[in-house]
């Protein structure tokens, strides 16, 4: 039995908005990445896990409890980071953290303080005046301070600078070692890549792929951008590779493996510039959604 179980849920908002027949489970101790472009239904799914909305069909269970009917019992074991920041603006950050801690019956504030130090958060100011990044940190403190066995995080790194994104990854890795079950939604591959065991992809409300991170990495292609000095070289090179695009003396190429072959080929030409980067999530999505446009 999975810790989080989603069984064939449908929530139809009309106009093809909503989610349709979504099913997946998160096992104990697993970190699951929930990926999808904006508006694909990630937050709608998470809202049902939180018991904010009821599925039209199907059922959502956490620890075997119905997420809507037994929301208060589920919440005891749950740390949650909402995708949209909506605090009680008239409070200071620390007051708000303390208030939520009291609401959650947390007596020991040492974990919260430890998190604030770790995230370099100064929560003394009014939240009205806080930047998006600071608010996001407050959200993270609230989600993690309970030390709950399950974490549900909706776009956890939005608004954080790269340094903080790394700290967040560290936080997830630490929680994973402690045996926590984590579901996090994201549209940034890197944060998922370094933390998740498995990835579920959603598009237009339907699950399009469920892959282990291992498989996903294996299938991930490299994206090359090669600038030739002479246009005829570019034309000649492009003839050898079927899946490439040429624009004058520039060639864009995606390849899986075959690195040696490519380097050998390129050594015969006069190269002006060469860029290589891992395939982005969007490009990977295109692969899963059936080969792009």
């Amino acid at each position, binding site marked *: 039995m999975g810790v989080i179980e989603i069984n064939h849920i449908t929530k139809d908002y009309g106009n093809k908005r909503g989610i349709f027949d979504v099913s997946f489970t998160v096992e104990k101790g697993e970190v699951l990445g929930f990926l999808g472009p904006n508006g694909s239904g990630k937050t709608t799914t998470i*809202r049902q896990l939180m018991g904010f909305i009821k599925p039209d069909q199907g059922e959502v269970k956490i620890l075997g409890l119905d997420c809507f009917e037994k929301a208060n019992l589920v919440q005891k074991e749950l740390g949650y980071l*909402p995708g949209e920041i909506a605090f009680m603006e008239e409070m200071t950050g620390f007051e708000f953290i303390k208030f939520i801690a009291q609401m959650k019956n947390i007596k020991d504030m040492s974990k919260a303080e430890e998190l604030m130090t770790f995230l370099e958060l100064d929560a003394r100011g009014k939240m009205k005046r806080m930047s998006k990044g600071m608010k996001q940190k407050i959200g993270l403190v609230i989600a993690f301070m309970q030390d709950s066995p399950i974490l549900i995080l909706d776009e956890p790194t939005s608004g954080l600078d790269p340094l903080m994104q790394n700290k967040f990854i560290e936080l997830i890795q630490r929680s994973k070692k402690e045996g926590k079950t984590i579901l996090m939604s994201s549209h940034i591959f890197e944060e998922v890549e370094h933390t998740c065991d498995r990835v579920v992809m959603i598009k237009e409300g339907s699950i399009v792929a469920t892959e282990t991170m291992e498989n996903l990495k294996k299938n991930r292609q490299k994206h090359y951008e090669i600038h030739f000095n002479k246009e005829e070289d570019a034309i000649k090179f492009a003839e050898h590779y079927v899946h490439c695009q040429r624009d004058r003396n520039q060639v864009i190429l995606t390849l899986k493996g075959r690195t040696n072959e490519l380097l050998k080929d390129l050594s015969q030409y006069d190269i002006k510039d060469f860029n290589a980067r891992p395939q982005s999530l969007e490009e990977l999505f295109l692969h899963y959604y059936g080969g792009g446009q």
Partner: protein
Amino acid sequence: MLTVLFKKEWKANYKIFLIFIAVLTLYTSVIVAMFDPKLGESLNAMKESMPQIFAAFGMTDPGLTMLDFLTNYLYGFIFIVIPFIYIIIMCHRLMSRYIDKGSMAYLLATPHTRTKVMMTQLGVLLSGLIMLIVYAVLLIIGCSTMLFDETIELGKFLMTNVGLLSIQMFFACICYLCACCFNEIKFSIGIGAGIGVASILIQMLSQVSDKMEFLKYMTPLTLFDAKGLQSFEQSAVIGMVVLFLVSIAAIIFAQVCFKKRDLPL
């Protein structure tokens, strides 16, 4: 009832409460001070010169006793409108705003049922309302004994205020019901506020002339009959009981609706 939430809301909203206390103090003390047993006659003369305007604000018979005077000048309009504005503001701050902005998510992401959260917020609303009315009662008693020898008839006066509480409870529960059932401010506050404002306007119209009197059957304010309550008329007492019962029904509806519905968080 969640003590933590109850305290937090009072801490966040006590300033608004104090403003209303100040406004009530101003109006009440001025009006009590205006009372003059002899003034009744001159006010009656004034009323005769512009009966419609006096009638619109419920001042049909300025009367001769302190209680008659206050019933006309405070319980006809001022004590209806001021607490009503407080109700609207608090419904927005305690419920509509949290749903509209999404911060309700934080309140519900705690090991408490929706019913508990919603009942606590209602508790904040009603406790404030009751305190406003109790304050007004004490203020009137205090002012009248300080300024005049004539003491107010306590039994009748308290009965009037239980009636006032019934009509304000009614407005509070209806507004809160709307706040719990709708997502957007324009509905969640608009409908509740609309009902209240329309009630007050209709009552004002119905008092202006006999031709419009039938309108009084279209406003719940008719169920609050201060003069009837003072003479313990059966119909007035029934009206008051109906208001309390409708309030309780509204609370039950609000609880069921809020518990079952999808929230846009």
